[in-house]
């Protein structure tokens, strides 16, 4: 009984850190909540006001087009919320005040969870707005696949957060962490995916790529789930100057649900544990 009490008492600093961190980041929360509402309204409502813009045939297609920006929102939110989670303690020297007061593992866990709740809240707001418009246009019931998509969006944003946290654990400066993680997540993974697909075609699936794993958010909305997941596009005919030929390129559309979920979990746990270990070892 006593051990159980000690255990819970030991957890209270984490709980207090979560609350404190959420208060600390509330300006960012307001900003991103506004952005996510605006984007959702823009994609779901404002665009429909243009006469040339046709409303999707099904609710699932409507959700799919509405979610085209979710990866950007989650990506920017993860970068801005998590880039300073560790390196700012060193860069701004706040660690001198905080480190002697709380175990570093508890501190990082509290900060991580506090920020995580906020980015999940932002994603949730986006889905709620989208869901409401889906209901408004197509009536109920809401397609169950939007909930699957939501689960993957949450998993994806947690994986992104862990990834950025890992960078924050060894980078010196918050701004550089933001720039580098944005470059890697926006361009690095996509470029690597293109190269890998060009070289290996359907023999090597780019499962290492967070950008590729994020495709699950929209592909899970499709019924049936895309199969085959590797698609080849072919082009043929006579080109300018009488040049002709056949050109084809392939692309991986989405990982399988099982593999995608597993790898997102690996990213979440692996990156966070590594970040926590580096944080523990890093000296101020």
């Amino acid at each position, binding site marked *: 009984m006593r051990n159980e009490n000690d255990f819970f008492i030991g957890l209270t600093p984490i709980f207090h850190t979560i609350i404190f961190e959420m208060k600390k980041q509330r300006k960012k929360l307001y900003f991103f909540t506004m952005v996510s509402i605006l984007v959702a309204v823009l994609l779901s409502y404002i665009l429909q006001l243009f006469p040339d813009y046709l409303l999707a045939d099904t609710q699932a297609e409507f959700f799919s087009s509405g979610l085209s920006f979710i990866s950007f929102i989650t990506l920017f939110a993860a970068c801005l919320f998590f880039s300073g989670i560790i390196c700012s303690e060193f860069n701004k020297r706040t660690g001198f*005040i905080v480190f*002697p007061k*709380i175990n570093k593992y508890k501190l990082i866990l509290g900060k991580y969870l506090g920020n995580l709740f906020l980015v999940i809240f932002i994603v949730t707001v986006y889905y709620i707005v989208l869901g409401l418009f889906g209901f408004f246009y197509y009536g109920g019931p809401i397609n169950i696949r939007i909930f699957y998509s939501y689960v993957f969006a949450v998993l994806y944003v947690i994986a992104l957060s862990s990834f950025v946290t890992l960078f924050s654990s060894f980078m010196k400066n918050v701004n550089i962490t933001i720039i580098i993680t944005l470059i890697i997540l926006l361009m690095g993974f996509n470029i690597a995916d293109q190269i890998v697909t060009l070289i290996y075609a359907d023999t090597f699936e780019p499962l290492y790529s967070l950008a590729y794993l994020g495709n699950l958010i929209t592909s899970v909305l499709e019924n049936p789930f895309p199969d085959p997941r590797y698609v080849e596009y072919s082009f043929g005919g006579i080109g300018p100057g009488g040049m002709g030929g056949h050109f084809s390129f392939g692309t991986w559309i989405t990982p399988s649900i099982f593999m995608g979920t597993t790898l997102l979990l690996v990213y979440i746990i692996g990156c966070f544990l590594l970040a926590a270990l580096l944080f523990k070892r890093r000296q101020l």
Partner: protein
Amino acid sequence: MTETIIKLENLTKKFGNFTAVNSVNLEVRRGETIGLVGPNGAGKTTVIKMIAKILRPNSGKILIRTNHSDLQDLRNVSSTISQIGFLIDIPNFYNMTAYQLLKYFGKIQRYPKDKLDNRIDELLAFFKLSEWKFERVRNFSKGMTQKLGIIQAILHDPDIIILDEPQTGLDPLARIEIRKYLRELQSLGKTIFIASHMLYEISEICDKIALINYGKIIGFDTVENLALTLKTSELNCLLLEPLDAEKILPLLNRIDERLSPFLDQNLDPKISKIPILYNPEHQGLKLYFNGKNESKGEILKILVNEFESDFTVISFTQPKTSQLERVYSQMVEDSTPEGPIKLKGVDIKNEK
């Protein structure tokens, strides 16, 4: 004798090829106030950071006694968080209000919830920051931030308080307030460890001084005992009435003649050219003597009894600060990166 509460054993910290702290041995006993004094880059903050577990020593140990148990290796002790309060370097806070910050710090250090608000109010009031309770620290002046740094160090009422340059950025009034508060803490039996450049503050508050240079402890004792290493000590003698200008010179000659066995006749000209000075502003005599305790008594007797018709002595003191200043400069000048020059009478390792 009170028990040892913190013990540093051959503590060493290197940054690449640079040895910031070099085999430091130091014992702090319960209830003592220890001053760690040294020039910039001497290793003061590094020692404190290692006690705070912010830096890991390359070798050596930090032993700590928690809740009257045996001395334990700091690496194996997690309860230090609630037992020690730290102020390290110039404090940098998250940009929240003073209240939000202190509330958070109090909670994570498990200060009783029902008393926390009162404790915060009490400390903010003492340090004259009550009006700033709900202001963000971004709007605080340097001195106010420093005060908040001291508050966060003592908020959870720790047994051991470790302060690194607590007087930095404070105006004279604030320094007095802090000195007063530290004295209160001393009277409550708290163990205090202060690193500072400000010799006056240190000499006023601390029971013992540890002098550090090139990462080594070059002296550790009371100011009085450290002063024994000096060939010359200083005495201040205040007089009831000013001396007659015409009589000063002959009178000083007479005093010099009479006190000659006790005065330092080979005085370092950097300190003074003659061993007796009269300061009309302070209405007092300054005497440089041989530093022996028995000499002080003899000098006082002679001045009171044999010069009764010339002046009346109203105060006879040996200023701690100037002694410490001279001990400090002498020891720092004499020490080398290889180690301190062994100074007579200085108990470097405090092995008593």
